[in-house]
């Protein structure tokens, strides 16, 4: 069923009785060409591009809970391509280009809104680091503009420019950065994959991975065994447990990242803004809530909830940067589970088991990566070769020292 404004009007006139399910609810088959473990954003986009780009449609996505129930539905919805290390630059650049065509691609309004992202800096040293980043972005073919203090003021007059603790020196402006409606991304890919024949199977937990003679044969699930020629593990947040079923120990530690939303407010923040002296980033959703977040809680956890010290730190950062939001009231806080890797960059790679593939380690960067991650993972699963823009996301790079450490904080997982 094709969605359009006309269809909305027609259905509205007839009591909205004609809307059909966004996806089927199939029973799992005994065998698939590809089984994708994980019905989150990345798993769904991988399924979609396997079908769309590679014509592989005998695919099942196995989801333990409900589609899009992981981090794709619990993030701060920021979409950007502002990385500076080779390996990351081209990947996120590719992803942003896919975002820019996503509504048309999926016939689903994911509300990708290029409101512009401004990363603030507060010292000469930070400015130099952002200049390096901005130059990388332009060299990659993306957009970046260096703003001085007055330039920032023109865009964001409500910041506290008088505060002297960490004065605002300027900002790196990324006009194509922005936000999207997070759930819609999962639903749009799910609907697109389903309509191309992919089986989306919810409430189906994988309990084992069948491996014979170094080759994957299928999976055991809460709904019975399923044979598969290829299996893709795409379960950021639970990567360690799933990989352990294949006897693997991953360079991943799981951490909580909290996020917050306020009550609805009339438009007051147009951009996506990040503070440079303490992790804090904020935007306003179309519903009017301020959506913001900060750093990890910093301790390993699968709890999807956090504690007060980081909550308070984030709020304090908000107050020092833009005290005009003081009277906005936080409505809800939640936590996502991040696969933190020793260099802060992801993994899209084969595993030592033939036919078993791994997409994990998204750290903070998972949401904006959803389109390109699916694109590249589908390419890897279909062809057995890494896609050109994801070729540095190897599993062995920590052992060999070919690192992609944007933060420069080293091998301690939670510092990225």
């Amino acid at each position: 069923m094709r969605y359009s404004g006309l269809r909305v009007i027609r259905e509205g006139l007839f009591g909205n009785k004609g809307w059909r399910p966004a996806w089927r609810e199939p029973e799992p088959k005994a065998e698939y060409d590809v089984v994708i473990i994980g019905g989150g954003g990345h798993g769904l986009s991988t399924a979609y591009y396997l079908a769309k780009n590679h014509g592989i449609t005998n695919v099942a996505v196995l989801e333990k809970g409900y589609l899009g129930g992981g981090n794709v539905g619990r993030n701060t919805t920021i979409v950007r391509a502002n990385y500076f290390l080779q390996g990351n630059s081209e990947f996120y650049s590719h992803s942003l280009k896919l975002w820019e065509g996503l509504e048309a691609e999926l016939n689903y309004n994911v509300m990708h809104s290029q409101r512009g992202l401004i990363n603030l800096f507060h010292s000469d040293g930070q400015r130099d680091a952002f200049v390096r980043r901005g130059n990388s972005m332009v060299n990659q073919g993306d957009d970046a503009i260096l703003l001085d203090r007055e330039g920032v003021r023109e865009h964001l007059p409500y910041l506290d420019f008088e505060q002297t603790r960490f004065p605002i020196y300027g900002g790196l402006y990324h006009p194509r950065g922005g936000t999207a409606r997070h759930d819609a991304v999962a639903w749009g890919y799910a609907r697109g994959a389903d309509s191309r024949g992919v089986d989306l199977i919810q409430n189906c937990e994988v309990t084992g991975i069948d491996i014979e003679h170094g080759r994957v044969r299928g999976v055991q699930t809460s709904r019975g065994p399923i044979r598969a020629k290829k299996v893709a593990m795409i379960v950021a947040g639970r990567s360690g447990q799933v990989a352990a079923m294949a006897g693997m120990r991953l360079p991943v530690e799981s951490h909580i990242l909290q996020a917050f939303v306020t009550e609805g407010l009339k438009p007051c923040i147009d951009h996506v803004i990040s503070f440079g002296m303490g992790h804090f980033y904020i935007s306003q959703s179309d519903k009017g809530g301020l959506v913001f977040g900060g750093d990890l809680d910093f301790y390993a956890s699968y709890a999807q909830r956090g504690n007060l010290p980081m909550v308070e730190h984030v709020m304090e950062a908000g107050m020092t940067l833009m005290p005009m939001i003081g009277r906005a009231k936080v409505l809800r806080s939640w936590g996502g589970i991040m696969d933190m890797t020793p260099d802060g960059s992801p993994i899209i790679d084969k595993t030592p088991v033939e036919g078993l593939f791994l997409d994990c380690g998204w750290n903070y960067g998972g949401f904006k990566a959803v389109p390109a991650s699916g694109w590249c993972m589908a390419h890897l699963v279909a062809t057995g070769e890494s896609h050109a823009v994801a070729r540095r996301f190897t599993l062995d790079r920590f052992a060999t020292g070919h690192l992609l450490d944007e933060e420069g904080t080293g091998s301690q997982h939670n510092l990225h």
Partner: protein
Amino acid sequence: MRITCPLCGERDRREFYYYGADDYLRRPGEGAAPEAWDSYLHLRDNPAGITRDLWHHEMGCSAWLVVERSTITHEIRSVKLVSDVQEGGK
């Protein structure tokens, strides 16, 4: 979150710095194979359940601690001084 430092008593989480799993206590000896270093620095069991991890009472007594803790419920089972664990283990 509150952690009972063996020296200072029960304190708020905000006094502590988190490092990572207690794998960091088992530093490979000189000349160990690269795989041992990869395992030491990068690879983690990352259990969804009881883990042992390292915390530093940075705003308190400066002791490094091994905390036995659930990553699901955050329940803390025990807290020991790293120095005791390490000296005892040698």
